[in-house]
């Protein structure tokens, strides 16, 4: 994108995330956070696009986001404060941090946005991720509650996840 070029689109940002996988920089991804919520329920305000990712195994105990930043730089995307500005959208890449996040990526649904296939974390996994002790805030509990009211949620699967990952939640 250049200053004189066409206005970027959200679908172009999603296409670029697919490119990141096709180029082998990441193994797999799934949209998470508030923008995933938008796919399943009502729009909520958010300022960035969270993307859970599997990075290629490199026989190192600590993962690094370096290859993603290098890929972004090659494509002319700037980065600031752990966000990559892709087609006008600040994107934060979050390496999968535990087994729940692993499953959230593995079981993500492929949805369509303006002709672009995009992998989105299922609502049951979004609720579970919101309830993880490290992520739990009043805002996230509210979002978890909003998701349980959406028709898209499989309550049996959510109950199974809550039990298996030892998460507490009073379902509305």
């Amino acid at each position, binding site marked *: 994108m250049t200053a004189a070029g066409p*206005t970027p689109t*959200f679908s*172009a940002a999603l296409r670029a995330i697919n490119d990141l996988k096709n180029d082998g920089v990441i193994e797999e991804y799934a949209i998470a956070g508030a*923008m995933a919520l*938008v796919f399943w329920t*009502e729009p909520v*305000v958010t300022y960035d696009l969270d993307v859970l990712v599997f990075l290629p195994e490199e026989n190192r105990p600590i993962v690094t986001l370096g290859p993603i930043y290098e890929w972004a730089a090659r494509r002319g995307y700037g980065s600031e404060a752990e966000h990559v500005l892709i087609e006008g959208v*600040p994107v934060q890449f979050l390496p999968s941090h535990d087994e729940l996040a692993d499953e959230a990526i593995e079981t993500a649904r492929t*949805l369509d*946005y303006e002709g672009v296939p995009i992998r989105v974390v299922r609502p049951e996994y979004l609720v579970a991720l919101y309830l993880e002790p490290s992520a739990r805030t009043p805002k996230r509990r509210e979002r978890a509650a909003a998701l349980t009211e959406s028709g898209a949620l499989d309550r049996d699967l959510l109950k199974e996840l809550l039990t298996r990952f030892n998460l507490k939640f009073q379902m509305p």
Partner: protein
Amino acid sequence: MRSVRRSRPSTDLLETLYASKKAFHAIRRGLPLRVKVREVMELQRFVLPLLARQRPLRPWEQPWQTEP
């Protein structure tokens, strides 16, 4: 402590109000994705100036420079 006795809405009225609120949210959940993404961007434009009055904005807290 005031001792004014106020009239209250009936249970039926409250149920009607809650039901219409539920229907309103159901309609919003069913909006086309592109419309929802446009709404997220509109919310950013409304909310960020208010947020900026409360605290310094973080670098990524800007309205997205993109079309939905």
